């Protein structure tokens, strides 16, 4: 699919129109009279003017330039790009689900409230925690909520504390969030196995530390074996253990963070619970807590009243407040619940398959790619480009060459503690054949790196556009179309 497709504005022509409105059935009003000085006398300058067929063609053509889960594997570590079940899309669009206004009377929203309640119950069962908020819009917002809860807890106990400990292997949202929550970030170095260094932790946990933000399994895909000991060290100084739940896909049905000593954690519904990425969102980042943090949860909270009716409780004196308007990304929550209902207790099988796939791939690529941390992998495995670097080929090059083999790249250059990292997470959605194709492709590229490195370094060769000039885009940003743009620039 190599067609060039101009911008929708460049196809526009006055008088063309796609969506037509039913005629007005009330007396028309002169907007200029009704709005006076506030009236926009001309139309929105530059707005598209195209027909319906052009809209369909334009966006359909654009879509064919995208890679997607529906087309093939995304071996992206820590992203958990699993199948997005279509029934989830169907139920989210049902009349009576998609149409509800967040301010409508609660007695007319019992269906919505039941959905929220059941999802809460399921997520609490999965995590082994005591209470939950479904409000945060994404993982990062969930992290912020979690830290606000931690702060509120410490404040109530007389000392808000100043610092949050974060491993050097952590995802960037962790330190960014800690700062927004008003904390100082103190890095804690991983040990030679890529795990939290217990001795260092003992030194660094003081009464000035509010919490440790831990990802488990770590961003290396390795289970933090010492997590109960970590929790004990923190709790001894009344500090809390926050778990970044991005890697829940390795734990669901196998173990429960609540039983490991975690006090508060967030989940990424757009990772573990199959809600679609849609090119970058929306997601949802529910936060689960132990009882000690329950009083501080954001408002509103779903409660059960007499007679079994559900209601939203806004009257929570110790709540940290709201982190967003309304109740949450309800449409995303519906999809996550549909996913859980489809699996039921059998969701353990998904976790097993995810871990099986990752280990199968690891087994077949060990020796071909450098494996910096040799502890058992869970749902993802992290290699490095050390072997290929000897020929001047790095992880970015290998990732781009993978595109020529029909795959989306794995996660490059993260976590930061592995220079030249290749982070691979196949998820349970990949068949054995797909895993075998992936292994073949990676082995072929390793060989190319040795025998014909330029082929790898110049990749990708088969895409609609080649490597794009990111430097130019950053030096002189062009962030919108303007009418003076010449059409010829778009030509292939």
């Amino acid at each position, binding site marked *: 699919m190599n067609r060039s497709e101009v911008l929708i504005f460049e196809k526009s022509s006055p008088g063309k129109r796609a969506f037509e409105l039913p005629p007005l059935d009330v007396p028309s009003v002169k907007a200029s009279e009704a709005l006076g000085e506030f009236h926009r006398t001309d139309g929105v300058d530059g707005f598209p003017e195209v027909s319906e067929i052009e809209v369909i063609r334009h966006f359909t053509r654009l879509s064919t330039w995208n890679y997607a889960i529906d087309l093939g594997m995304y071996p992206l570590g820590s992203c958990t790009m699993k199948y997005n079940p279509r029934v989830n899309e169907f139920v989210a669009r049902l009349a*009576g689900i998609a149409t509800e206004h967040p301010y409508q009377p609660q007695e007319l929203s019992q269906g919505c409230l039941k959905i929220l309640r059941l999802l809460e119950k399921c997520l609490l069962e999965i995590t082994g925690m005591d209470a939950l908020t479904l409000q945060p819009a994404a993982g990062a917002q969930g992290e912020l909520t979690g830290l606000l809860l931690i702060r509120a807890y410490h404040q109530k106990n007389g000392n808000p504390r100043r610092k949050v400990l974060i491993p050097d292997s952590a995802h960037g949202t962790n330190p960014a969030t800690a700062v927004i929550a008003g904390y100082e970030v103190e890095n804690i170095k991983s040990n030679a196995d890529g795990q939290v260094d217990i001795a260092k932790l003992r030194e660094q946990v003081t009464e000035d530390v509010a919490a440790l933000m831990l990802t488990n399994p770590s961003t290396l895909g390795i289970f933090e074996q010492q997590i109960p000991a970590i929790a004990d060290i923190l709790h001894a100084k009344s500090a809390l253990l926050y778990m970044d739940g991005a890697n829940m896909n390795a734990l669901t049905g196998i173990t429960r963070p609540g039983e490991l000593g975690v006090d508060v954690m967030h989940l990424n519904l757009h990772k573990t619970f199959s809600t679609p990425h849609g090119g970058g969102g929306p997601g949802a980042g529910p936060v689960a807590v132990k009882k000690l943090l329950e009083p501080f949860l954001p408002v509103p909270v779903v409660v059960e009243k007499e007679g079994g009716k559900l209601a939203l409780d806004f009257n929570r004196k110790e709540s940290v407040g709201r982190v967003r308007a309304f109740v949450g990304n309800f449409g995303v929550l519906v999809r996550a619940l549909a996913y859980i209902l489809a699996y039921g207790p059998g969701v353990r099988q998904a976790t097993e398959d995810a871990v099986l796939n990752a280990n199968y791939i690891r087994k077949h690529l060990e020796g071909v790619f450098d494996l910096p941390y040799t502890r058992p992998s*869970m749902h993802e495995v992290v290699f490095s480009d050390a072997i290929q670097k000897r020929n001047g080929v790095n992880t970015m090059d290998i990732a781009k060459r993978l595109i020529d083999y029909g795959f989306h790249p794995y996660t490059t250059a993260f976590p930061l503690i592995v220079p030249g990292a290749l982070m691979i997470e196949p998820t349970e959605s990949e068949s054995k054949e797909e895993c075998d194709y992936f292994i073949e492709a990676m082995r072929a590229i390793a060989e190319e790196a040795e025998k014909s490195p330029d082929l790898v370094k110049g990749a990708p060769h088969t895409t609609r556009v080649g490597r*794009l000039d990111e430097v130019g885009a950053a030096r002189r940003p062009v962030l919108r*179309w303007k009418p003076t743009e010449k059409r010829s620039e778009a030509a292939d």
Partner: protein
Amino acid sequence: MRYLPKSPAERREMLAAIGVKSIEELFSSIPEAYRLKKPLNLPGPFSETEVVQYFQERAAENSSAYTSYLGAGVYSHLRSVVTDAILQRGEFLTSYTPYQAEISQGTLQAIFEFQTLMCQLTGQEVANASMYDGCTATTEAVLMAERLTGRQRVLVGRSLHPEYREVLRTYAKNSGLRVEEIPYAASGSLDLQALKAALREDVCAVVMQSPNFFGSIESLGPVAEAAHAVGALLIVAVTEALSLGVMKPPTEADIVAMEGQSFGLAPSYGGPYVGVIASKERFVRQMPGRLAGQTHDLERRRGFVLTLATREQHIRREKATSNICTNQALCALAATVHLSLLGKEGIREMAEQNVAKARFVLSALEKIPGVRRSFSSPFFNEFAVELPRSVKLVNAELLRSKIIGPYVLGAAYPELTKHALVCVTETTSRAEIERFAGALKAALESPL
């Protein structure tokens, strides 16, 4: 299980290839004591049919067959079926964040078009690839102003959506930001005198909404002037984006924080929606969220990439402009498709229909004894009215006629008990509006 592409034989093969006897061995790194011995107690497994059934039953327990006059930040508008037809294409629905530009040109070009549309609508120079919603966009705009000015005091109109103000306060609590509210005047607009009295050179921004929470359109010029005179920025929040189809864009603002839900996104009980931050170009390096930029490859083919990423969390970590990672790409796509379908003529026509419908319902309501507008300023599709009787009781009556009545203002504005926010859009028929007026009259006349 239908989502798992493995047969039992394949699982055995793979275990053998790895060199383990059972899947349990692959979990040996989890201490034995912490491995679950029983299956989770979850409902299901449900077949596809049963999943659908579950949600259809829940749908039936909601508000189908009621007509609603609620707005207050979430608006019902017509949506073309074409939008979903495009949104549901797997290449859009199931694609990842466009970090690998060469295989994400579809998403990136659509984002670039979205950014352009938002600039055109708001009259600003640059817009980002979306925020979670208008509410967090407003808070992020304030944090942006804080970074740009180095000041920590922000003045917020009380006529800004109550939940937007709540969220700002939650974020402010932890950042040293001091939030002060400026009252509204008798006209329903921001009290300019009170604002001027509060403005000093320690203010990073003035935040106001237009049309404001009461539906009144605000005059931005004098506020901008007053703010700029002390070196503060003007942030304008827009919750009903369709208003820009027929209203002058807020070019006086330095930053616009907008909720785009009106553009092709169903109300969906509160989300997901799509927020936008748009501002003057010189502020772009402090703008949070993703940005798609135009560039080209070696063969000079035009392409798009995520750019200025060094603002973001994955590079700056603790020095990032925000912690935001996920945005609302699919919702932004919905808005882009929706606006392309409406086009220049369509958005104006839809907005004008709203203007007409709102005035029609107002004139019908004003004929009812005791009912009058709370404020006198121009409005788009929403306005506040004062009723001679408790709004809660009136709404309870209206429910019996399968009408969801206007938003009760008394909860968030105790000085406005007996006032309610009426919203009507192009989706409500004349017959329904007349029925509403009749039912409201009856509710006001019925014995207590």
